[in-house]
């Protein structure tokens, strides 16, 4: 980007932040940890913008340093960050068919893999911090899931990372409403049914999950897009390949959600990205054959 142009954007962002937060020069200077004289020098010359001041601002208001130079920041998100309002930027708020539960394990994985600082820096790309994801029932739209996973992929996260994130989702859900629901399970098979009937909407409702076949060896799961979500989002395309890997990881960990220390082999056999009317997943139950509860009990009516 042309450097004059980037300076214009930077100073516009700097000035808009002051306006949206309704800060006097002295208050803004204090917020930046600089004295009034330094502030005056900085704003009157508008020549250089010191990295240390930019870093302070970026840490406090959760934005990415490159974005500060390259695009108009979302001032609504700046306002939320300053006043500690736990909401995501406007882009991620309408058609909120996803719960924070659908991404909290992604952020947890990033923190474990690269540390808290790196996780926070990644989140700044989306003008947010991790606070929103602490309440696993907070709602947002699928664009955040798409954007975050695409960004992580850009940073080098691969297919196996996303799959592992999904598998490890169980660690964040070992207590709370997910477990409350699964506690009702009368058998492993019933537990799997409950998982797709009651638990999956606790992650996201952009797709419906219907068990079409359930034998002692396998489950076939049909996952058409939720028309309501599609209409609300004004898009035909929901999700991306990384989110599919996340989902496969979660499906693989269903036995762990039920307290059985065994991952399931899983695969996607049909994909809407390849023109199919819905995604179809196959879960291999044969690895659980030693467990008695998986035998042919009747499917609940909702799957018939």
């Amino acid at each position, binding site marked *: 980007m042309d450097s004059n142009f980037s300076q214009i954007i*930077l100073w516009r962002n700097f000035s808009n932040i002051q306006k949206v937060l309704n800060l006097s020069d002295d208050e803004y200077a204090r917020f930046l940890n600089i004295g009034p004289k330094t502030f005056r020098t900085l704003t009157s010359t508008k020549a250089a913008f010191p990295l*240390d001041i930019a870093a302070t601002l970026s840490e406090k208001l959760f934005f990415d340093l490159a974005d500060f130079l390259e695009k108009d920041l979302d001032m609504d998100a700046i306002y939320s960050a300053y006043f500690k309002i736990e909401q995501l930027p406007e882009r991620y708020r309408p058609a909120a068919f996803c719960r924070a539960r659908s991404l909290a394990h992604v952020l947890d994985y990033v923190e474990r893999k690269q540390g808290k*600082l790196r996780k926070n820096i990644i989140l700044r790309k989306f003008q947010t911090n991790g606070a929103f994801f602490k309440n696993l029932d907070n709602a947002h739209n699928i664009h955040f899931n798409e954007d975050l996973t695409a960004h992580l992929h850009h940073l080098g996260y691969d297919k196996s990372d996303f799959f592992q994130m999904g598998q490890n989702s169980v660690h964040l859900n070992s207590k709370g409403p997910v477990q409350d629901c699964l506690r009702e399970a009368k058998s492993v098979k019933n537990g799997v049914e409950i998982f797709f009937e009651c638990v999956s909407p606790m992650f996201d409702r952009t797709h419906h999950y219907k068990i079409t076949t359930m034998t002692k060896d396998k489950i076939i799961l049909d996952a058409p897009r939720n028309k309501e979500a599609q209409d609300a989002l004004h898009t035909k395309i929901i999700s991306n390949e990384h989110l599919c890997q996340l989902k496969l990881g979660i499906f693989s960990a269903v036995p762990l959600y039920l307290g059985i220390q065994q991952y399931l082999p899983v695969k996607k056999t049909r994909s809407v990205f390849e023109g199919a009317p819905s995604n179809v997943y196959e879960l291999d139950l044969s690895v659980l054959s030693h467990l008695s509860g998986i035998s042919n009990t009747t499917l609940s009516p909702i799957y018939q």
Partner: protein
Amino acid sequence: MDETEPSLRLKAGRVVYAVRKFHNYGQMELAKEFNVSQSNVSKIESGILAPDLRLWMELTRAFKVKDPYCFYYGSAEIENIPQLNKVGKSFYKSVGFKIPKHYISDPFITSRKVRPFIDVFETSLEKAWNEFLADTSIPSGIFDILNFPIPSLMMKDLADFIQKHAAKLDFTKDLNLMSQVNHGLLFEDYVSASTPFNVLKQFVHKQREYGIDFEYAITEEKGCESSVSAQVSPQLLNIFAKKDLATNKFLNFSAQYPLLMMKSKDPNTKSACNGKVRMQETSDSLWKLSYV
């Protein structure tokens, strides 16, 4: 900008200096290329002045610095540095750092492994360290490029320096291996939060980021006792006399990295382990390291 954090300016300045030297740019050339004054480049490198955000972003991009947020830890990784096993002698001639000719040799560790020691020297042994750098003509900037391959003969001199001054230093207390956590080297799997043994496993998995001076093998896993054998690499044996292997403090601590990491990750309050690292020589080139 006296009111803001000086350490950030110092760290950013170190990075600017190191990447400029690596890419063989003079201060004047850099100033011209990025449209700043030469005196400002000098002030930035000394930590007197914070770099302009635009300059910082353009410079980190142009010089292929992997992480533009590296000002938080004051060292950089550069994208196009070849892997250790692919570094030839021509590499040392191609970089801007003036590596003395007699040091040019195959590397087997990166600066990442030495950097925690350098941090200790700079804070506790500043005068001797600066004299050593002046005497040997080793460019200090190479230690700020974390993936810079350290020539093995240079490593020998570094190890001798450490040995000479070891009595004045307390590496057990001061060596901060966790400072590198932000480079993504300490990936914890979900079980590892409470088991230091997983830190060890992860180190063994990630050790190529540090270079291979020791080949680690996990020998047993029982409760909170863990042990690992550290086999000295053949390259190391070419450089050090066998008698030095057991006594040299650099080698000694370098070999214990994974266990020291385990120690620093050990949540003492939750564990019966007392977090002690034991090192026992079993043969000329094989050590048994235990964490108890």
